[in-house]
């Protein structure tokens, strides 16, 4: 079976999230959205930022895509994390997640604000997989940019 490092990469919460795919299924209405593709492996995601009427609070992310367990779990965990959050807080969380992914296995001081998504810390040890974990988060950034441009 796998090594302890591998087990920390593929924690139970990640494997489960990769199957549950919270938020999977795009909304028929128009929402700020973004498409991201990882050309090396073909993983892709289209993500919609669905907010309340004021536009200030995330109602829930909606997304569709296909890819490895890390990219799928990450999208699911991002959906869980952001539901109900003020849109204004998103850049900080995304920034924190990016910092965690770039930590090369060292982690970050306070990963509390990332909720269960902090379980993806193990990914940061595997440079080739960071892109997988970032896919949904980059798509969310793109969707926010589209929303700001409107």
């Amino acid at each position, binding site marked *: 079976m796998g090594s302890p490092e591998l087990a920390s990469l593929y924690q139970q919460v990640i494997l489960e999230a990769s199957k549950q795919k919270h938020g999977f299924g795009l909304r028929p209405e128009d929402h700020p959205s973004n498409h991201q593709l990882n050309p090396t*492996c073909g993983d892709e995601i289209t993500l919609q930022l669905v907010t309340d009427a004021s536009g200030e609070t995330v109602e829930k992310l909606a997304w569709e895509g296909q890819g*490895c*367990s890390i990219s799928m779990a990450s999208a699911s965990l991002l959906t869980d994390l952001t539901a109900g959050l003020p849109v204004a807080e998103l850049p900080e969380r995304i920034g924190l997640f990016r910092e965690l992914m770039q930590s090369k296995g060292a982690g970050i001081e306070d990963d509390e604000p990332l909720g269960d998504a902090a379980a993806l810390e193990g990914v940061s040890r595997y440079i080739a997989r960071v892109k997988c974990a970032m896919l949904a988060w980059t798509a969310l950034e793109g969707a926010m940019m589209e929303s700001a441009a409107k």
Partner: protein
Amino acid sequence: MTLNHPIDDAEAARLAADFPALDQEVNGHRLAYLDSGATSQKPTAVLDAERDFYEHHNAAVHRGAHTLAALATERFENARAKVAGFIGADVDEVVWTSGATEALNLIAYGISNASAGLGGEEAKRFAIGAGDVIVTTEGEHHANLIPWQELAARTGATLRVIPILDDATLDMESAAALITPEVKLVAFTHVSNVSAVINPVSELVALARAADALVVLDACQSVPHMGVNVRELDVDFAAFSGHKMLGPTGIGVLYGRSELLNALPPFLTGGSMITTVTLEKAEYLPAPQRFEAGTQQVAQAIGLAAAIDYLDAVGLDRIHEREAELGARMYRGAAAIPGIRVLGPSEAALRSGVVALDVEGVHAHDVGQYLDDRGIAIRVGHHCAQPLHRRLGVTASTRISPYFYNTTAEIDAVIEALGEVRAYFGLAD
């Protein structure tokens, strides 16, 4: 001396000892390098040849009259002769490129330059335009697809694609129907880098000849692994890369029939490829120099010659046989695992040693990670062949590509790990 006994595990292990990069631990396990289809490892003899060149003979070739320049030029041209002998070509039919990708683009841009009216009278035979057809196949590496798409877009010619069947072999009935008299060029791979399919070269060449079309062979996955004689195959052009056959990166080969190379306009232009230059125009040297503009990759060419010496000493027939054996073992082992689908034909005679597969419910990236954890290096993804994967109904696959330095124990370790993958990712059998 030609050896004819088969390569066994003991010999493979002895040969592997010539490759410094194979002698290391990865994630606490001895490295099992099974990604030679992407790039092979290099024996000390190749590293030494490059080093020796830089230490003793380094100089620009075909320029200057000093002693080192002469020595460097001699070694560079000897390397060309070595390659020519290796593939059954004449020495002036071997053009150095940075790799197969550049070689294929060189042909496409040469044709496009001819189509734009460059290259004079003799280049007219290459000119194509609206109404003309280029043919390639659905099973190609992007390097043998996109240059033809772009050539068609530049010239107004049409691109036709020979479809592959469910087992990734070419649909030869369609090939016969598609290769009509309007076809000017037929480009296809000798051996697929994904499905392992060995294409029926002679049948395709016959169809192309009947249409009076040029034949371009992507020999990237054949030249390193089996004896290839371009004259016997009767192709017009062939392309391959040094780094997949024990040689350095940055060196590749375009073979072209002499008569064609001397008529094809150059792709890259600049120093070292001309006879007379005025402020208005330039006259090109004959092939191969007309295609070798700029300072050449001399050390890499010399490294490639050393690689060919190494391959010759082991023996291409023995290499081919050994890889077929490793591939068949891999195929049998993988195909017997529930939930694993091996891509490509089941008939051994149609396959090279490569095995690409899909693990149902587990993404190739995750499969690759699981194997890497055991020190097993394989490739995951679309392997630069998206249309092929799409046709076979997968976005990515896991590819095991052995070389003669691999052992059956390494293959068995992959099979064992593959047998555990689905359970590890929570999928019941």
